[in-house]
């Protein structure tokens, strides 16, 4: 296939995948108003659309791989069957980890093409371009054009887009299928909502099965639009659209006050982030005059360069000058090689602004509060929107927009990520609602991704995005299955021992838990590394942050916090699993009525758990990593030296693979730490909640008992309780309180202030402005009325007025003559 043909083919496939759910949405909405509200037609349409989308996406991915020669270069399949013993520490020292064994070959290509003076885009993969382009951009239609400024709906397809498409459609398909089962109780004309009390009983309403699927389809469309977007403005558009879909889905149970409030909160908090986003866009638009990411075609790029091309050269470097007044200026390369400069701080501000949007969307500190509340939505929504896809959009955007971020912005991102991941993890420890634990966990994991991107682990962060999507959606679906099985009971203290009642759910959940905690068996056996996807991604993140610390001494927290977070994660995730599935039932009634979910619900679980295990197969040598590296921004492989004005270095791949102590590379060291911490956490959880050996309550009960001293374990228990559990509880309590009181308080305060201001505003309006107008009117009226009294009706007075008037006019003449 010619490049143009491939471009058309890919864009066609992805467009179909993108638009199918939209068509589905329209059909389903109308279907609901026709006669099929009690049938599953809507669900089948939705599943059909998204499923077809998945097929298209996968086809696109494969086509891309085949026709760009990517598969040929990275023959993963062969490699898999060769069973080459591989460790985690083989990365070539030249930093091209992704290229694996073909690195040297690649470099040869690279050099050759460089010698021919081929044009380079902003992305690292551009060295393939002269051979066969791997990035495709184009436009669907123009939104508007103002002189030299153009805005369009377009697409930008690289391996990241394709991977995201495949991931989103795959997960969405699974969740759609799952939802057929989960939402089936809506298939009635008389749905009883036990959470809403009306008058004397519960609310009865017609079921809204079709509407749920319509919203899901609309969401899928929006999310895919966000991914395929060819420019950041289009991202913003779909950013808002996913927001509104999220609003609709969270508030799906419109009758529940809590649901609609949570939906409002989600949208408004997101809008706060979008406010920053908008400011970022304003700066970029005004400074750069374009929103396009990057223009792959060299000829077109010369005319209309994208943002990345304007800011950075082929090697990912930007030019910073110091102006006469000592301020830093960034030199931009405009169309036809023209140059202009903008202040450096503007670029930083733009980056922070865009990141604000990501903070909102990805529920990062300090805007994380909406996500736990968003669990008001049906569980499939939580799985799809609030764990796998939409909340990851923030991370995706940071990744996509990476070249625009200066190191100062990146370090901000990293800190936000670090704070978020730690805070959310500690909160998750004390949560008892199963979905809330997962929600906090999601926030925490998103924090990891942000951190990773912030410290330069571009691939690691996005890899974690993918892996997390799989295992987190898996876990959400499992929790959904539990909730479904336990008749909408979400409190873990009422569960326990469900493993026997719902084995498939339990064990798929366990897979998810292991995946997220990053447990693995070190080393390779039989050519396999016994590690699930989460291990690889989290490993890479921690490794990068360690490397970052190595380059920037002061940023030690950026390593400590994720490391600690890994342990806490393990603790609370296993706590969740043990709480729910292990041991004896705590509430016999619930346990008795619990049942395994039907196949339509557990089959997706199995599929997802497969991907939760294997999607990041082989870590840094694996296909997913390779695909992502292919889209990595230029210069990331080498890292960035400290540069003005922040003097912050960003590690490249080789930094991660440098020797640190002995033979162990940075990566190895970090991996060991992380694994150790995770295992510790897991064990701790087991001791508390699995084996229930260390029950703080028991300990307390037996403090006065004589046997206390005999059972040394319990002292440990108490010690642990005092040393770890309690402080963790307390701290997380504090942080939860901080969250609740300070940040929520701040938000409430703000909204209250807003209400106050608006009341005041209204009063101002009614009293001052209207008052003024009314006052003037009133005055005039009064003057008019008082003039009435001049007309006394007395004739003699009138005559007097003739004389008076004469005199008055004469005076007027006199005055005017003066």
């Amino acid at each position, binding site marked *: 296939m010619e490049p143009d043909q491939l471009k058309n083919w890919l864009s066609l496939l992805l467009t179909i995948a993108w638009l199918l759910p939209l068509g589905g949405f329209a059909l389903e909405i109308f279907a609901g*108003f026709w006669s099929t509200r009690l049938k599953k037609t809507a669900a089948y349409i939705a599943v059909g659309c998204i499923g077809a989308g998945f097929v298209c996406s996968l086809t696109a991915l494969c086509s891309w791989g085949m026709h760009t020669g990517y598969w040929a270069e990275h023959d993963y399949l062969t490699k898999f069957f060769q069973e080459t013993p591989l460790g985690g520490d083989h990365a070539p020292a030249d930093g091209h980890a992704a290229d694996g064994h073909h690195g040297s070959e690649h470099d040869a290509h690279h050099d050759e093409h460089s010698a021919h003076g081929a044009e380079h885009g902003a992305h690292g993969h551009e060295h393939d371009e002269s051979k066969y382009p791997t990035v495709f951009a184009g436009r669907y*239609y*123009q*939104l*508007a*054009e*103002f*002189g*030299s*400024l153009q805005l369009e709906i377009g697409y930008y397809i690289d391996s990241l887009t394709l991977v995201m498409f495949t991931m989103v459609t795959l997960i969405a398909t699974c969740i759609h299928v799952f939802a057929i089962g989960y939402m089936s109780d809506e298939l009635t004309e008389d749905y009883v*909502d036990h959470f*809403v*009390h*009306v008058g004397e009983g519960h*609310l009865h*309403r017609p079921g809204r099965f079709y509407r749920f699927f319509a919203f899901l389809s609309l969401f899928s469309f929006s999310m895919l639009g966000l991914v395929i977007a060819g420019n950041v403005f289009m991202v*913003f*558009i*779909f950013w*808002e*659209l996913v927001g*509104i879909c999220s*609003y609709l889905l969270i*508030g799906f149970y*419109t*009758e*529940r*006050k809590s649901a*609609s*409030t949570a*939906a*409002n909160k989600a*949208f*408004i908090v997101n*809008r*706060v982030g*979008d*406010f920053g986003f*908008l*400011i970022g*866009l*304003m*700066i970029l*638009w*005004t400074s750069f*005059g374009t929103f396009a990411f990057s223009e792959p075609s060299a000829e077109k790029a010369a005319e209309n360069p994208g943002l990345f091309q304007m800011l950075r050269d082929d090697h990912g470097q930007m030019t910073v000058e110091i102006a006469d007044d000592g301020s830093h200026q960034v030199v931009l390369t405009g169309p036809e090689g023209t140059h202009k400069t903008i202040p450096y701080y503007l670029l930083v501000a733009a980056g922070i602004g865009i990141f604000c949007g990501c903070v909102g969307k990805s529920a990062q500190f300090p805007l994380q509060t909406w996500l736990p509340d968003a669990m008001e939505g049906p569980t499939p929504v939580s799985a799809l929107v609030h764990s796998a896809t939409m909340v990851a959009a923030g991370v995706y955007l940071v990744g996509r927009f990476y070249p625009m971020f200066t190191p100062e912005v990146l370090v901000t991102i990293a800190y936000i990520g670090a704070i978020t991941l730690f805070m959310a993890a500690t909160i998750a420890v004390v949560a008892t609602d199963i979905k809330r634990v997962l929600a906090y966990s999601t926030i925490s994991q998103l924090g990891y991704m942000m951190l990773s991107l912030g410290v330069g682990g571009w691939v690691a962060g996005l890899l974690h995005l993918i892996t997390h999507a799989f295992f987190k959606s898996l876990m959400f679906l499992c929790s959904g299955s539990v909730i479904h099985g336990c008749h909408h009971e979400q409190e873990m203290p009422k569960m326990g021992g469900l493993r026997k009642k719902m084995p498939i759910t339990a064990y798929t959940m366990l897979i998810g838990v292991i995946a997220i905690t990053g447990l693995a068996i070190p080393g390779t056996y039989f050519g396999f590394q016994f590690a699930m996807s989460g291990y690889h991604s989290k490993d890479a993140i921690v490794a990068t942050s360690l490397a970052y610390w190595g380059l920037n001494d002061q940023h030690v927290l950026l390593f400590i916090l994720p490391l600690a977070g890994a342990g806490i994660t393990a603790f609370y995730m296993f706590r969740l699993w043990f709480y729910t599935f292990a041991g004896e039932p705590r509430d016999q009634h619930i346990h008795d009525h619990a049942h395994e979910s039907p196949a339509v619900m557990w089959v997706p679980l199995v599929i997802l758990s497969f991907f939760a295990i294997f999607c990041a197969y082989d870590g840094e040598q694996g296909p997913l990593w390779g695909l992502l590296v292919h889209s990595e921004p230029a210069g990331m492989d080498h890292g960035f030296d400290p540069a003005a004005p922040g003097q912050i270095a960003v590690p490249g791949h080789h930094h991660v693979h440098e020797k640190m102590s002995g033979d162990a590379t940075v990566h190895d060291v970090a991996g060991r730490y992380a694994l150790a911490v995770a295992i510790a956490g897991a064990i701790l959880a087991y001791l508390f909640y699995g084996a229930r050996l260390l029950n703080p309550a028991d300990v307390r009960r037996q403090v006065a008992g004589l046997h206390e001293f005999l059972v040394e374990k319990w002292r440990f228990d108490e010690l642990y309780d005092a040393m770890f559990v309690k402080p963790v509880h307390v701290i997380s309590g504090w942080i939860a309180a901080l969250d609740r009181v300070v940040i929520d308080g701040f938000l409430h305060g703000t*909204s209250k202030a*807003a*209400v106050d*201001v*608006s*009341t005041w*505003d*209204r009063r101002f*309006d009614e009293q001052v*402005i*209207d008052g003024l*107008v009314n006052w003037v*009117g009133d005055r005039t009226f009064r003057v008019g009325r008082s003039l009435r009294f001049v007309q006394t009706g007395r004739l003699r007075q009138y005559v007097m007025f003739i004389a008076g008037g004469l005199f008055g006019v004469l005076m007027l003449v006199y005055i005017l003559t003066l």
Partner: protein
Amino acid sequence: MNDPIILLSAIIFAPAVGALILSVFNKEAEEGMRVFALITTVVTFVLTLMLWNIFDYQDPQMQLQVSVPWIKAWNINYQLGVDGISLPLVLLTSLISLLAMVASWSITKQVKGYLILFLLLETGMLGVFLALDFFLFYVFWEVMLLPMYFLIGIWGGPRKEYAAIKFFLYTLFGGVLMFIALLMFYFGSAGGEVGSTFDILRLQKIGQGLIPGVEFDGMTQMIAFWLLFVGFAIKVPTIPFHTWLPDAHVEAPTPISMILAGVLLKMGGYGILRIAFPICPQGAQAAAYVLVLIGAASIIYGAFAAMAQTDFKRLVAYSSVSHMGYVILGIAVWKVSDGSTVGSDYWNMGMNGAMFQMIGHGISSAGMFFMVGVIYDRVHHRDLNKFGGLMGLMPLYSGLAVGIFFAGLGLPGLCGFWGEAFTVLSAWNYSPILAIIAAAGVILTAGYILWTIQRVYLGPEYKGPHPEAITPINMREFSVALTLLIFAIAFGIYPESVFGMMRESTTLLVTNLSNTVNSGLEFAGNIIQ
């Protein structure tokens, strides 16, 4: 029909002729009169579509110009024409009028008078958008006062008299200011071979210094600009001239609210674009900062005020204040530095955004008012705290309403988004601070719209009076709402459909005005110093 004078005159006077014919109808034949009036608006709409059909998108100049002497002694002509700035508004007017007429079926009191006034109003609105003679423009502008006064005053709510007179006074006051400017231009344009004139196009040229021997000096332009601006700002309305709007809206019957929000407010923006800026570029330039400030302040102020309302219609009215703030903001972002325009493309974008906002707001606000009207017709109250649960009771209506409210919220993919986004994006070039203030509007807008949706449509049950009266919407209401929603979506998805129409004209306008400053004319700013 392709003769411009016939077509344009037909568009303007078709409703008036309809009104004349209606006056001989029997008072009792209400249904017949309604149908006849509807046919009149449909005919007008079709005529505007014909106009659209022969309009050349590529020609930035005034098209289909006609000029017939009216009062020769004063050089007043019956001069009409259409360009990319007026055409979208003409189409909007005839469309909204048509829909409002369909919505007028709920009017049962003195139907004949209502329909006649309604049609006269439409004539006035179309005349304003098509007139190219300032005198004629002024005549049409004022002509609308009478029908509007009675439409609010007779068919309005409890405080209709207050609202009607307030509306009348404000607008008349604005008209008086405009009148002064009109005279200033007329006498200032003496000289040259034509002599004093009301020809807007010629006045524009004079104002832009393109006619040798005649010019409006900086001081004249500043004074005239402010007179015009206040006159138009009252109509827009911006703070602090906005307080007539909530009252007028609250009291006006639903179809009139639709017209008021959908079309009348746009005339203010149109006046600024057609008259104030092009004729007084120097005055406009000197005033730009204040204008942008007013725009940004209106956005925030209107949003806050909306949030505090408990009356559904009043809330929507204040949202209009907020939304129209974007129009002023977008129009005024004319940055000049060292005597030349900086980033005229951004200004162009702001202008286009403002124009789009007018169209988009025309659709969305008309829709919002209609939606309020639909529920008001049933339960006869508008207290936001006494709604709830409508989603369950009237699912179709609620679905459409939520869609239209989302358009008002500025959701991408719906018509409210582009205007807001583009004006705000263009504002940074002018003033980052004000741009940020304006952008903050997105949060507040989301706040009050979502809160409203929650209070009205969501929730378990309806809490207010007359629950028994809540019936699903009928076909007529459905068709109006659906039409508006379809337009909201269409404009939202393919904004180029509107931008394409007006691009050439706005670009020309921006270029001309930029050149005015660039060409080193005496800069009004000098006078201030």
